[in-house]
């Protein structure tokens, strides 16, 4: 059972392979769900740690180039959020190709 989610090549090599079955599609989707939920939990923990550090310690109380370190870290978290979101979207798009291939085959067979 392949978990390959890469899109078909220009030469169409993957088009000659049979469309994935539902079980393998669901396996890929479950794997994506696990990674999404793990990423969400990690981001939440990272963010709440930032809040605890800024409200209860002096660890982030310094200033760098005229701006508080807490701002720099806060802006870095914003940037990290965008990176995680972009990676997630790119990965999900690749999975869409596999799902679309399955759905097209499913429709061709008159649905299952």
């Amino acid at each position, binding site marked *: 059972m392949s978990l390959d989610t890469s899109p078909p090549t220009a030469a169409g090599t993957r088009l000659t392979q049979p469309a994935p079955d*539902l079980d393998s*599609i*669901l396996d890929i*989707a*479950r794997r*994506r*769900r696990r990674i*999404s*939920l793990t*990423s*969400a939990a990690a*981001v*939440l923990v990272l*963010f*709440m740690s*930032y*809040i*605890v550090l*800024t*409200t*209860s*310690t*002096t660890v*982030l*109380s*310094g*200033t760098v*180039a*005229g*701006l*508080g*370190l*807490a*701002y720099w870290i*806060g*802006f870095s*978290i*914003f*940037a990290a*959020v*965008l990176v*995680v*979101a*972009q990676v*997630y*979207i790119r990965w*999900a*798009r690749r999975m*869409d190709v596999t*799902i679309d291939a399955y*759905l097209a085959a*499913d429709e061709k067979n008159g649905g299952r």
Partner: protein
Amino acid sequence: MALSVFIVVAIIGVTLAITYFAAKRNTSTESHYVAEGQVGPIGNGLAISGDYVSAASFLGITGMIGIAGFSGFYYATAVPIAYLLVLLIIAEPLRNLGRFTLADAVAARFDGRGLRGALAVTTIVISAMYMVIQFVGAGLLVQMLLGIEFWVAVVVLGGLMVVYTMFGGMLATTWVQVLKTGLLIGATALLLFLVLAKFGPSPLQVTEPLSGDLTSSQPQSTTRTLDVVSQQLALALGVMGLPHVMVRFLTVKDGPAARKSGLVALWIFSIFYMVLPFIGYGAMRALGSGALVDAHPQGNLAIVQLAEYLGGPVLEAIVIGITLATILAVLAGVAIATSGAFAHDLYTHVIKNGKASNEQQLKVARLSLLGIAIVAMVLALGAKGFNLGFLANVAFAVAAGTSLPVLVLSIYWRGFNRVGAVWALVGGLGVSLGLVMISPNVLGPTGLITGVDPLFPLTIPALVSVPAGFLLAYIGSRVGSSRPDAIGTDFAIIERRALIGR
């Protein structure tokens, strides 16, 4: 003043024209509730960001930073995180399972009138709090900015909200929201440019001459630390339970479009909230914190004062006009989500047991908007003196402690059942509101009843109410595990639909 009124009237004119054109297409329940699922991902992303970037952000965060420095930034930090969590956890499954309302997504797994009714009531409670906040804030703002009586401002804004939503439905609400987001981003960019031209050109030159205490974080007391942590938890998780935000993911055609909408909104949030501190510090340097406090105790007029300082009465009038457009757009978004809960969930499914025709449902949805507006306006007139920040935090905490556990567990947990969902909704609502009733917001020297010490030390209950909501869902599910009628649709079917949309 005359210029401000002219710009406000011009913006309202454009929004009414949008409503006129949208009304021609607003002929079915599908178009009224979710714009037939035909909103493009970029437009929807702009509308999602518009739903959250309210006057509270634009005026409140800049004002708080202008007065107190870093502590105002706490109101901005959670927003991009909240929407990343929406993107990773709920956007796509919600689009795949839902139809018109949040309750539809849960009903895909657990049908039945009781749970749907409880979800609708929760939606209405959260939305009512949100609408009262917007009405009171808008009324006070219009009173201060344009010299109009509070009640007149509330009635005029309520009337406009009804017109947008009753005639234009979700389509008009979305277009008005997109227009407002564009205007708000434009105004923010212009203000940043002028601040940098005056004190920059580098953003760091804006903050460099200020004391380190103002531009950096400072440790707080234990209670204050727990309060901030609780508030941030409510803001980060509460968005996933906010009906008017979540319903936007039902206005696009499929899961990938929902995903893309979330990404567009994330980019807007991240840039917008990264820019706001520099505008706040610009106001601090231009006018001084004292002048900002003199104009408004929480600094809510800082951005208007800054606009006048940097661009004269023309820029001031533009900022006032855009602020009012912001408030109107958010009000319309909340109203349309509430009308869905009322007409689609309560009327059609709970009262009529699913047997109402589309025409009947559309008629009730439109009439409910009038009722919702009247109730919200009456509540707002009575809540003029309330602490709006407190109300907003409670709305988020209730959303995070009630709708959130039910939505997330319906999608992700095989062992979840109808009993657990009801326990989470009813118990979560009880815990959230109960903790507020015994908190410093109600009891003690800063509350409504003085002379009695608060029994719960935090002003925002999320730190307790969110785990309580999930715990109640778990215990309820264990209690109901032996009841076959509580199981609902086979989880394998729900999982497949949530994950791949089929």
